[in-house]
């Protein structure tokens, strides 16, 4: 059970949240090639290391935000707004 710091509500149990999958995926324009569109639909990073995801505080403020999480140590490296750029985590 992760402890996630909701930017609006503070630290809460993972059970209150919903993971929405990888974040920072650029939605291609209608003119995108079939390959680019397929990549957008289906291809995701699967790092052993820091992964960038969006989470919703479903049983709380219902807001979406970004979480940078290490898939090896389970450490949460950063929590940041949907509009913020991907942080540089060494």
């Amino acid at each position: 059970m992760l402890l996630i710091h909701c930017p609006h509500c503070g630290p809460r149990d993972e059970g209150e949240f919903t993971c929405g999958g990888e974040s920072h995926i650029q939605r291609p324009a209608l003119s995108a090639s079939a390959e680019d569109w397929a990549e957008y639909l289906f291809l995701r990073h699967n790092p052993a290391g820091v992964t960038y995801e969006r989470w919703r505080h479903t049983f709380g403020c219902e807001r979406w935000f970004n979480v940078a999480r290490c898939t090896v140590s389970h450490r949460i490296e950063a929590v940041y707004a949907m509009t913020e750029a991907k942080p540089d985590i060494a």
Partner: protein
Amino acid sequence: MTRLPTGGLIDRSKAVRFRFNGRDYAGHPGDTLASALLANGVRLIGRSFKYHRPRGIMAAGAEEANALVQLGSGSSAEPNLKATQVPLRDGLEATSVNCWPGPRFDLRGINQLASPLLIAGFYYKTFMWPSWHLFEGPIRRAAGLGLAPEGPDPDRYVHAHARHDVIVVGGGPAGLAAAHDAALAGGSVLLVESDFELGGSALWRPEVEVAPAIAALRAMANVTILTRTEVFGYYDHNSLAAVETVMAGDGPRQRLWKLRAGKVIIATGAIERPLVFAGNDRPGVMLASAAQAYVQRYGVLPGHRIVIATNNDSTKEVASVLTAAGASVDVVDSRRGLSVTHAKGALGVKAARLSDGRTLPCDLLLMSGGWSPVVHLFSQSGGSLRYDDTIAAFVPAVARQPVECVGGAAGDLGDLNIEPEWETPGSGKKFVDFANDVTARDIAIAASENYRSVEHLKRYTTLGMGSDQGKTSNVNGLALMGELTGRAPGNVGTTKFRPPYNPVTFGALAGPLVGTLHTPIKCLPAHAWHAEQGAVFEEHGRWIRPTAYPRSGESWEAAAQREALEARTSAVLFDGSPLGKIEVCGPDAAVFLDRIYVGTASTLKPGRSRYGLMLSEHGVIVDDGIFVRLAEDRFLVHTTSGGADRIALAMEEWLQCEWTDLRVAILPATSQWAVMTVSGPGARQMIADVGTDIDLADFPHMAFREGTVAGFAARVLRASFTGEASYEISVAARHATALAQRFGRAGAVPIGVEALNILRTEKGYLHIGVDTDGTTLPDDVGMAGPIAKKASDFVGRRSLLRDDAAREDRLQLVGLLSDGPMLTVGSQVLAPGGTVPGPSDGHVTSAVFSPTLGRPIAMGLVRRGRSRKGEVVELYDMGTRLKATIVDPVFVDKAGEKLNG
């Protein structure tokens, strides 16, 4: 009787009555079921899992692998509890598991004769052909454990959350000291102990003084102590799960704790290991420290003529305790070249045969193969283990979370001087895993068949997979594998320890979230009125809704036929309150909906509505509905009843995550509004009859008006799912019943979900998720029209340009008319040639008997269906073949004259 006249932590002034296998016994407060049975001379407790061998009590704590019992009966039965962990209480009823008719004479013991068949991997080897399922039933009956409770659990369970600066797991000497140190630092401390008494090993080693530490902790305000509470899981971010057995009268039976700690201290001690010699599973063969525990804690001397087989120094203390209690004790020490090779005696040990050929008569054979620190929680936390040669055991190495092990759990076991002899020479069944009947020979077979990795060893032999999770067997098993394959135990390694440390009841895990607290049921605001009208209710997407309103002597199917006909001829009332209602507001509301829906919202005028399909990014239809423009910057979006919550969430996700620049707010309003739909040729007159200030003469199909109906403020939309002129009248939910009553008095016939299904099928209106599936695109259901007219992008549009979307052989929605009988939903349309099994050309999605046409009608998704109208196809369903003609899916009022009337 083997109870000693004095000693122990039991209250001899009180008797506790209990039953075991139908016989009455007595013990004392402070006893466990195991100590009380031993005190009464009961040695034979049950039969083993696979071979049905007689088994007794081998331990005094959580590591017990033999003495499993069933408590209670019927709905409150609890199977497979360790007798060593069951506190004795008045009226306790326990029975053996896995034997019939009883442990002394067990008919299934015949499995022993077939035991060469039941060796490692026998499931895989023996029951491959033709199907495992043919063998599963008899095997499970023969090799089962306790019985599952019958009927719903009568007990209550609760969940609780807590956070502490330090959580100490284990209330033995090391845990008490660690808790005291932590408490002095000032933070909040939680001490958790699985036993009903604090003290751990001090409970059976009275020379270790813990009373002052316990008293000090109880006096500290920042310390919380939980006993009878087992921490069974260690998860991410220092969270722990524990289950507390609550003993108070009418309270919950168990409480599941979800704990989080700044720091965790693991003080779970160590578990003694068995020795691997022939017959080491016989009743009367016991871990050496367990005998010490029975004497010192419970005042029970479990044998009088005792042989101790050992390979380490921890048994010195045991021998002196047993001698002091009056037993005669012989020690057989493999470090001096002498081992016990056989335990003799069928239903209870009678003698020990030694490696020098001698036989020592005995009534208790104790064994100590060394000690294993209880590193389960540390391993669950992600910590790594290393093998420590000096104690011949795995100890904590590198922690991955803020956790520390202390005492026995850290490998602090004193001077053991252990020299392991992992397998004693000699022939016979030498058990490694008592719970799952895994022998040394099984491990040799696994090694010879190349299942050498510890993970393969576990799965091939089931080593460590019993209800004791290998507490006594893991190290012996992997050390034996190491010897067979020339590896040190540390190089074999352990399997990952997984929760739960001890079995947990489903009741505790579910807590209060059962029944309607797990899945809440929603009732219509006018539910009582529907019941008065004789409604038969059914659950539809968590709403309890009227299926039909059968009259006296009428089946619900006949009622639905009658109701559907009424809709075509007079005026009916349908309660559409679950219809999803979402208000989309803000300056960019129209732009937002243009991006969400296939249809265009921005060109819609206030007071008008439009049908919209919603797609996933894969182009697949996920919902449909009608959006109404209430004002320039305000829309009311109707979704399907089942989609109400899901679509609002999806809209929020698009707004918050993708189109963060749009100024739009989403207001879900489904339950605020009740919707009474009046439909049929008489609908307009009926609304006039109940009274309205809306000009019904100037109210075309797909228009929207606000005003009053029957005196209630109402939003009225002319939209139709019946094919008749329909008015969806939304009023505040609290007025639902009053409005329904008014229409009822005016003569409207109530119709249920089933009649609506007939009516919409007659009109060829699709039901998302019924007539569509996870592959259906707009063009497949003939709804690509709006797309060509729309310039801008919307969710899923790019996917409609894929080659796959333009395939000519896609499944398309069509009508199907059988040559007589009803078609069945799910029937397959056979490809030309009609072979079964063979390729499918689609399937039936909706099928009803049309009262309007007096014949069965159906819709289905058929390959190239739209270009095959008039063709007769063959259908197949569960062995029956039928023929049907492909037709247009609109069966009634193709021109839509009634709709606009």
